[in-house]
């Protein structure tokens, strides 16, 4: 892998201004001038609620959906007019779409047969891949006899078999139960690293995206709302939409003046270098600190929810909207208790006012 390190910086996939419209002209496009680059061997995860255009994005790259505008470049080559079966990409469908009339080996070998590789090589590759995905010796099993997790593994082996230059995954773990999902995410990441596969995945599950990806791209209404490393996106959501999609609801109107902002919750410290003026402000629950009732913003505990590692408190201040606070298990006050609140500057994020 190190030998190729020099070339990895090159973009394997480049989308430029890709737009797709369904339904009436003039309606909201499913994809709205999307620009996206994926470097070789990078794992990019597109994250967004349903209807945000994630799946359409994959279909455009695969050539299953024609873009109304914009370019798709694979290894620098424009893919306009290149039919799906000549693009050399792999796509794992959300519900796997295994061929019901073929057995496991027949499914995995399908792409190799289309490329007319020798039978012996097909058999070897199938055996290797089934080992890799943890289903050794499953060649002759009927697809209908597989469990959901096994089907998912067969679908993965089938997509990997022809060695696609880009592997795309549509909600790869969407239909599996939670435990299996968490285990598979780790396995997948290890597998892709080992094989040096370039991956473009879409999911609505942030846990999945953060665990799998080198880079997360959050989509909203057919546009890219934010792109960055999982840590980046988690710590610095760019817009109110991203913040709320990640589950952060402590968002208020604010006017920045120097080192603090005036909000319905009183003065909230902001990170250094924030420019003055009105904006929207996110205080992550970890940044809401409980103090004694006399100090800080007086609040009543409206509800408390046990979250395993901590307790989530819903606080009702005397003025302004409710806010959520994360509190260690032992220190959590009862419902109805009166507490004081102060804010930690490192957990305050100034959101991009333009969107959301």
């Amino acid at each position, binding site marked *: 892998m190190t030998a190729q390190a020099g070339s990895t910086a090159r973009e394997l996939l480049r989308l430029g201004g890709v737009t797709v419209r369904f339904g009436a002209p003039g309606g909201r496009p499913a994809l709205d001038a999307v620009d996206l680059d994926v470097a070789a061997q990078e794992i990019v995860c597109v994250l967004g609620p349903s209807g945000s255009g994630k799946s359409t994005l994959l279909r455009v790259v695969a050539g299953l959906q024609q873009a109304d505008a914009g370019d798709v470049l694979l290894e620098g080559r424009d893919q306009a007019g290149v039919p799906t079966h000549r693009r050399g990409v792999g796509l794992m469908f959300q519900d796997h779409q295994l*061929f019901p009339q073929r057995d496991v080996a027949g499914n995995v070998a399908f792409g190799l047969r289309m490329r007319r590789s020798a039978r012996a090589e097909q058999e070897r590759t199938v055996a290797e891949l089934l080992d890799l995905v943890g289903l050794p010796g499953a060649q002759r099993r009927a697809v209908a006899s*597989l469990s959901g997790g096994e*089907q998912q593994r067969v679908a993965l082996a089938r997509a990997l078999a022809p060695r696609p230059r880009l592997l795309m995954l549509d909600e790869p773990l969407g239909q599996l139960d939670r435990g299996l999902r968490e285990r598979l995410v780790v396995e997948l990441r290890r597998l892709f690293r080992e094989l040096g596969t370039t991956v473009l995945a879409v999911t609505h599950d942030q846990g999945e995206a953060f665990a799998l990806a080198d880079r997360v791209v959050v989509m909203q209404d057919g546009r890219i709302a934010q792109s960055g490393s999982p840590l980046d996106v988690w710590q610095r959501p760019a817009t109110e939409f991203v913040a709320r999609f990640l589950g952060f609801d402590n968002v208020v109107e604010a006017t920045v003046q120097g080192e603090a902002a005036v909000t319905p919750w009183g003065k909230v410290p902001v990170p250094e270098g924030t420019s003055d003026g009105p904006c929207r402000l996110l205080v992550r629950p970890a940044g809401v600190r409980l103090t004694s009732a006399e100090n800080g913003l007086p609040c009543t505990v409206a509800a408390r929810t046990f979250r395993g590692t901590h307790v989530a408190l819903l606080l009702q201040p005397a003025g302004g909207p409710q806010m959520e606070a994360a509190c260690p298990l032992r220190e959590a006050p009862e419902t109805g208790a009166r507490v004081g609140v102060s804010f930690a500057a490192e957990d305050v994020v100034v959101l991009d006012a333009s969107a959301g």
Partner: protein
Amino acid sequence: MRLGLMAVPLAFFALFFAYPVVAIVGRGLKDGGQWQLGRLGTVLSDPDVLHVLWFTLWQAAASTGLTLLIALPGAYVFARFDFPGKQLLRAVVAVPFVLPTVVVGAAFLALVGRGGLLDDLWGVRLDTSVWAILLAHVFFNYAVVVRTVGGLWSQLDPRQEEAARVLGAGRFAAWRRVTLPALGPAVAAAALMVFLFTFTSFGVVQILGGPTFSTLEVEIYRQTADFLDLPTAAVLTLVQFAAVLGLLALHAWTVRRRESALRLVDASQTARRPRGRGQWALLWSTLVVIAVLLVLPLAVLVERSFAGPGGYGLVFYRTLRSAAAADSTFAVAPLDAVGNSLAYAAAATVIAVLVGGLAAAALTRPAPRTGPARRTSMAGRLVRGFDALLMLPLGVSAVTVGFGFLITLDKPPLDLRDSWWLVPLAQALVGVPFVVRTMLPVLRAVDGRLREAAAVLGASPWRVWREVDLPMVRRALLIAAGFAFAVSLGEFGATVFIARPDHPTLPVAVARLLGRAGELNYGQAMALSTILMVVCAGALLALERIRPQPRTGSAGGTPIDHSGEF
């Protein structure tokens, strides 16, 4: 791509359907190059014609009502009960539907006609009353209702009714509020199909109706063949055409509504053994109905074919072999008709499967995704129109098509008058709708994303069809071929015009024999009908064996009943 697939079926329909029909209508309504639309009014105010119209309508309505009344309990029995021999009985019930009308006519003649079983036993004759026609229509269409309604009924999730019961609905209320609304569109579709078949009934009425009763189709035949009154025939053709168009539109609408999401489950999970006296009574009464109404006429037909003048024997079969023994109108031995029929039907099947298969493939191609939305909806309408066009031969007067063949395909470059292919072409026309209806649901059930998965893995469109579609539709293709074969074998209305006298098909030979007096002719008609019945029933029973097994599995296969569209 789609247009390419459509080209062959479109050309076929233009040449062998639209052209002959338009030509004959034009010939009837034109005089010296002038359209004589006044004839419409003249003919339609003729009391005799009005009488025919009225009879056609009410007998179709009565037949439909009677069929529903008798067959709906049967649909329930087949859908919800499990009993030994159910598979066999299901096949038996389906046999009448593929039997040639002529055979059905002959069978009911043998049961309720002059010298028939009832006549022998109690001196009862129904062939002079409308009841013979109505019963024959029920005989024919019993399977349509049982298959269409029962097929859906067996897949309705019983838990839906159970949910209603838990919410406080009584047994009947649950059925009325949950099951009936779900079945409604299927019942409507079946009723419309029965109405359509009985509205255009020809062979049955021709044989059982005598001079008293005449449907539109029979009247068109009489006007063209007996009186050579083309203008009247042309007007009647137009009337029938308009009625059929209306019925088909209504049918398409109900079928589309049926496609609304219903929770369907595997049929094998919903049936259970009958419980309680009421359910056993229902099962037994259904069995009695099937025995009396469906099996008895055919049994009598077979019995009559062996009942020679000197006791039971093969005399009628043996005489079929010689031309001399037959009536002078036969230039050949009646048995030759068997060979003719088989050869014609085989050729017609090949044509029908080719044309119908291409049409079905064109109808299932995904709509082009390129253009703006307006174009796809245009394409959608085009496809729907194409779909309806394919159904038209089911309802347009076969007599008109046959006669149209004679007057249009007789000059170069299409001089087929002396061609052997004339008959198979006409028969294929009737087979195509069956092929399309059989193939379409199966092709549509193939998940489009399965094709996409194959494409992403490097399969070209042609490979996609071979690797994904073909393995799934292979059985349906065989079934479609069998249907087309049976239908071609029994085709009567068009063939009676174009089959050459020295090359009769089985139905034509039977009709000719029945048209003559004499015990030998009658017995030979019964013998030929029996042969025809055996061939058709054999074809159908062979089909039952290749009916697709219900696909279990998670890959999104929905259970498919191929007869569901009829």
